[in-house]
């Protein structure tokens, strides 16, 4: 009995340490974002302090506002998500449900494109975009984001399409419905859940992307992950503001992650089996 008790306590301590380790850096950033510059620098670190929204006011509405970058991030992520889904849903349906020659190869090709290291894509892409003047534009960034969002979305969606019983389509065809109509009216509603999960993942990946963004962004289009570097320099780091920007950059993805929590776990495991999921 005591041995069992001891093991239970040991388990609790170990798991609590893990929980703390994961939560702490995030909570600590949030706390620092609510401090004044003096409080941030206090030593020993202050856990109790008078919270203030000063840092948020400064980074959002002060000079060098981060607001345009947040808008950039949203435009890029939403644009990528819409275009990706418009292409991925039909493609995934075809790969999952239709019979055609070269289907195996097509599926393999989608997987294989994920093997390409992003740095190997950005070098030639940078040269091309520079030639046509698309550096520092939304269309340039969104186009290259398709290179990772499309294969991922297609494979994730294939796994959801495969779950629908074939009888549903057959019944629709027997009723004389066209293929397009069947897809739109019968199949798509069945995979609504899978489509929302895929949307969440595509948005997250686009919001979090950094390598392509750092090469292709400029003064017009600069997502928040790149813009936060303005707050750290060799001379000085604006601690409270940096914390506020980090929190603002985390907010949308944490929000999405937590509300879609159950589905995200499913999405990750489905993606794991199928070989999707990256970064």
């Amino acid at each position, binding site marked *: 009995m005591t041995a069992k008790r001891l093991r239970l306590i040991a*388990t609790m301590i*170990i*798991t609590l340490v893990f*929980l703390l*380790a*994961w*939560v702490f*850096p*995030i909570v*600590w*950033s949030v706390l*620092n974002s609510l401090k004044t510059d003096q409080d941030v620098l206090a*030593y020993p*670190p202050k856990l109790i302090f008078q919270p203030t929204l000063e840092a948020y006011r400064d980074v959002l509405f002060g000079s060098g506002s981060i607001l345009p970058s947040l808008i950039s991030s949203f435009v890029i992520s939403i644009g990528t998500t819409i275009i990706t889904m418009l292409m991925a849903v*039909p*493609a995934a349906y*075809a790969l999952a449900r*239709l*019979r*055609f020659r070269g289907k195996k190869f097509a599926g393999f*090709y*989608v997987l294989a494109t*994920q*093997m*390409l*290291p992003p*740095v*190997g*894509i*950005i*070098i*030639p*892409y940078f*040269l*091309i975009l520079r030639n046509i003047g698309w550096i520092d534009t939304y269309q340039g960034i969104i186009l290259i984001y*398709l*290179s990772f969002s499309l*294969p991922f979305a*297609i494979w994730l969606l294939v796994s959801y399409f495969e779950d629908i019983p074939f009888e549903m389509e057959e019944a629709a065809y027997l009723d*004389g419905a066209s*293929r*397009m109509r069947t897809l739109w009216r019968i199949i798509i509603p069945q995979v609504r859940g899978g489509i929302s999960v895929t949307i969440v993942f595509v948005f997250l990946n686009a919001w*979090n992307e*950094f*390598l392509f963004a750092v090469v292709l962004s400029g003064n017009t289009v600069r997502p928040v*992950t790149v813009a*936060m570097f303005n707050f*750290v320099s060799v001379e000085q780091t604006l*601690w409270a503001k940096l*914390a506020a920007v*980090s929190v603002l*950059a985390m907010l949308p*993805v*944490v929000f999405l992650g*937590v509300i879609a*929590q159950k589905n995200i*776990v499913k999405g*990750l495991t489905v993606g*794991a089996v199928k070989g999707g999921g990256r*970064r």
Partner: protein
Amino acid sequence: MKPAIATAGTATGTASGDLGQVLAQRERRFAAALLAPAFLALLATTTFPLIFLVWTSAFRMDLAMPFADGFVGVENYRALLSDDRFWSSLLVSLVYTGATVALQVALGLALALLVMDMKRGQDWFRVVAILPVVLSPAVVGMIWRTFMLAPEFGIVDYLAINAGIGSKNWLGDPLLAMISVIVIHTWQWTPFAFMVLLASLASLPEDIYEAARLDRATTWQRFRRITLPLLRPAIVMVVIMRTMVALTAFAAIFTVTGGGPGTATEILNLYAYRKSFTELSIGYGSALAVALLIVTLLISGVLFALRRAK
């Protein structure tokens, strides 16, 4: 939308064959129409750049000195083989990948086993584990670089001072910097391994464990003989996915150390980036990127062979 079916149906003899052919052909056309947009986009954003990359890797192309540009054949690759910085970055890549993947799987599996036995509180872990995984590696890197690891300011340094280890230059010392970037990657992605393995554990059949309990198998025996073999496919899958990501990790290392101090944390991926976009040697940078692709393919080949092997 029925005329084709109706006409095919009125034919004699090979009616069902014709109908089948007509339908099969329509299905093929429909599939082609559905696949076309996505595949054109993939060709344009992945395959075409790859061909172009291999092409540029055969050129001397310096954005800083465009007058010296020209075709050099395999010269970039020959230079690469005798480039110490290439070999050191390859070594850093392998150490970084090996260490982070091993840590993620070991910690993720251990934690999944512990949490699986918990009667209450499992949901807490499921929610908390989401947090690091959904964050941008760039933001994660920034937080660690400043609020966690900055000397005489970060929490880790504060704990080190209080533990009697003293203030350390966590990102300025080559060995500590390497350990730091490994820890940061492991911090962010262990929850992924944990979530996938926990889900696989939850799907294992209960009755095998019941039988093992009747046979009075010890906890270790149950783990070694039942859990581990059954989890093997999931573990191998996690290893493959995480290896691919670790090999091309960029944002966290870029923000935390920028590859430094010197080239202590410069993985091959980062070296290709620095060569191309900091030193502006696009041709040589392309050759480095091709080398990274070859390394990636070799490693994934080995891993997929492992997956198939029993």
